[in-house]
């Protein structure tokens, strides 16, 4: 089988050449993007951090797709199918569930953010609940959860480098030099071009990814003897009892007791996705309220592709790869499969798709985290009178810091730890759901109750995630854990959210009973239906062209 020849021995020259060429082209685009569609003052945070809030449907499709289609999806989801079977396929259910959610609440967030000039979710929480403390909690959660997510993009790039025979999964500086150079360039063009850089690169990225997936889904099954054979060999391999754990690795159907973990993973991940600051950046950067909703149907194309990407994990099994032949790291499954089955020039294209697919979200994430720091920590707590130009300068520098923090994360810890922290990030970010989404609909919840619920959810989730151990890991070994007082497992983030909600409701009841000061709400009900058309007379600073009637509130 081809798997034997593909262990990393020697540098794969052609592949490396293609990847470097594509990378150089993309970097050039990133720097050029600074001048693309420039509308206003370059020193304004709305310009650098939200692309001037000027993106229409077409660009938004690519930009939001960039949030969903990360190296994590491309590398970790198939790795999870490779390692444990059907449970990993929750990613498809998750990307189905996410679109109805987006359809319902994101237009309201867009409207209120547009009306009040909010750049981050924490801005909204501060305005809505009149609480700097709650806003700080949201901002810190966002930054902490985003950092390992960026680190994971690096892990994706690392796995490509490993398969090409450059770099390694161990942490030695010389071997990680290519990764370091790649990130230095990413940092530089994000600094100069802001959100415009990933928006522009997203075109190239998607082109590469769609070509790769289409070819992979048609070509690889033909080569491996059809889908029936792929599923049956995956089924056989997953059922093999491992000598270390004395249990089967998994199954191509959900085994007993995996139903609830599967469902909660899908629901929890869907609810968490648009709590991540980087996902909201793509939404807030649109120029009209209707853009997001109109986009949702077209965005499902990403979910379909993701489904096929996930199945690459089974194809790797059918091609004869084992965890051992992947250098004991299942994250290498997809890059190694590409390397083994494609002619080397096309393997180069496919591997650059993964690398560029990691760069785009990494750039968006670092911008989002930087915006959070500047708006909700720097301005609120350190320098309240910062000018827009100072805010933008601050954000640019923090975007660099965040990226190098993530780089340190990857170089300092091994790849498995980065993934574990990403899982923890999902648990943490979901705890901001009541304050953000709840706040879009009601002021019923008291700001201190929201803060108490958040703290309880975070504490529970972090402790339980830390306690999960396996044969190979002492901590953070699993995303699912037993629900207290039951024999049923569920996604930790969802259990923690239930804890969060219970504390929220009880605390809310008490705080309202004692009439604790509820804070000032800076928003009014009409703000949640606001659209650019409403700005023509009032405070709108840029002329809005006459346009068709837009989609309203649901």
């Amino acid at each position, binding site marked *: 089988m081809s798997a034997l020849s593909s262990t990393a021995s020697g540098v794969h020259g052609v592949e490396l050449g293609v990847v470097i060429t594509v990378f150089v082209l993309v970097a050039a685009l990133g720097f050029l993007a600074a001048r693309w569609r420039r509308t206003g003052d370059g020193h304004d945070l709305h310009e650098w951090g939200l692309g001037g809030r000027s993106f229409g449907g077409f660009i938004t499709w690519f930009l939001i797709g960039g949030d969903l289609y990360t190296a994590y999806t491309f590398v970790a989801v198939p790795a999870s199918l490779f390692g444990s079977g*059907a449970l990993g*396929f929750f990613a*498809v*259910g998750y*990307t*189905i*569930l996410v*679109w*109805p959610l987006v*359809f*319902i609440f994101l237009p*309201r967030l867009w409207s209120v953010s547009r009306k009040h000039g909010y750049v981050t979710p924490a801005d909204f929480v501060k305005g809505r609940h009149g609480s700097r403390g709650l806003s700080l909690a949201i901002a810190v959660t966002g930054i902490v959860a985003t950092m390992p997510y960026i680190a994971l993009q690096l892990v994706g790039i690392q796995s490509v480098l490993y398969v090409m025979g450059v770099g390694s999964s161990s942490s030695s500086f010389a071997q990680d030099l290519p990764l370091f150079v790649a990130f230095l360039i990413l940092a530089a063009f994000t600094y100069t071009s802001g959100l415009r850089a990933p928006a522009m690169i997203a075109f190239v990225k998607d082109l590469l990814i769609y070509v790769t997936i289409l070819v992979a889904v048609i070509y690889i099954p033909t080569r491996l003897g*059809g*889908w*029936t*054979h*792929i*599923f049956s060999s995956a089924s056989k391999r997953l059922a093999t009892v491992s000598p270390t754990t004395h249990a089967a690795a998994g199954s*191509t*159907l*959900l085994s007993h007791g995996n*139903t609830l973990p*599967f*469902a909660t993973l*899908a*629901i929890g991940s869907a609810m968490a996705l648009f709590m991540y600051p980087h996902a909201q950046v793509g939404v807030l950067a649109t120029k009209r309220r*209707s853009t997001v*909703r*109109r986009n*949702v*149907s*077209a965005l*499902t*194309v990403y*979910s*379909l592709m993701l*489904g*096929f990407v996930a*199945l690459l994990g089974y194809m790797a099994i059918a091609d004869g790869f084992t965890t051992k032949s992947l250098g004991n790291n299942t994250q290498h499954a997809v890059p190694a499969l590409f390397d083994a089955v494609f002619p080397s020039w096309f393997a180069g294209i496919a591997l650059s798709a993964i690398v560029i697919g990691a760069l785009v979200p990494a750039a968006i994430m670092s911008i989002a985290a930087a915006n959070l720091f500047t708006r909700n920590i720097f301005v609120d707590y350190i320098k309240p009178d910062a000018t827009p130009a100072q805010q933008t300068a601050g954000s640019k520098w923090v975007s660099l810091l965040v990226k190098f923090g993530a780089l340190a994360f990857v170089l300092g810890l091994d790849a498995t730890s980065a993934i574990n922290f990403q899982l923890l990030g999902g648990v943490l970010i979901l705890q901001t759901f009541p304050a953000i989404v709840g706040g879009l*609909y009601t002021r019923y919840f008291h700001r201190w109750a929201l803060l108490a619920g958040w703290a309880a959810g975070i504490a529970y989730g972090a402790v339980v995630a830390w306690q999960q151990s396996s044969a190979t890991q002492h901590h953070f070994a699993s995303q699912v854990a037993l629900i207290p007082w039951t024999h049923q497992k569920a996604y930790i983030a969802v259990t923690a959210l239930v804890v969060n909600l219970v504390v929220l409701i009880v605390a809310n009841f008490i705080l309202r009973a004692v009439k604790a000061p509820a804070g000032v709400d800076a928003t*009014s*009900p*009409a703000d*949640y*239906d*606001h*659209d650019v*058309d*409403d700005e023509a007379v009032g405070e709108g600073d840029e002329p809005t062209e006459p346009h068709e*009637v*837009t*989609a*309203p*509130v*649901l």
Partner: protein
Amino acid sequence: MSGGTTPPRVLSPLRLFATFCVLAPTVAVIAVPTYDSATPKLGGFPFFYWYQLLWVVLTGVLMVAAYFAIRTDERHRKAFRTASPAAAPGGGAADGEPGPGDGEAGR
């Protein structure tokens, strides 16, 4: 909810239809035991896999439908809001408040 105006109703048929479009994929995905099965197979894919991939496509279609339903619904409402003060001078008192978007809480 703005309770003053009579037609169009808060829960118009179009809004109900959009709600259905949004809820259907959610229910389909959450009902895991209904599709956790190897058969019937389709093109070598066990049911578990092709059923979920099929729902990705259906979700796309339903979202288009929901988008157009909401857009049409809102055009009706907007047309009603602008037309009603002149058309019904006697009964126009209820929707006398000016301003775009009368702050319906939606869902």
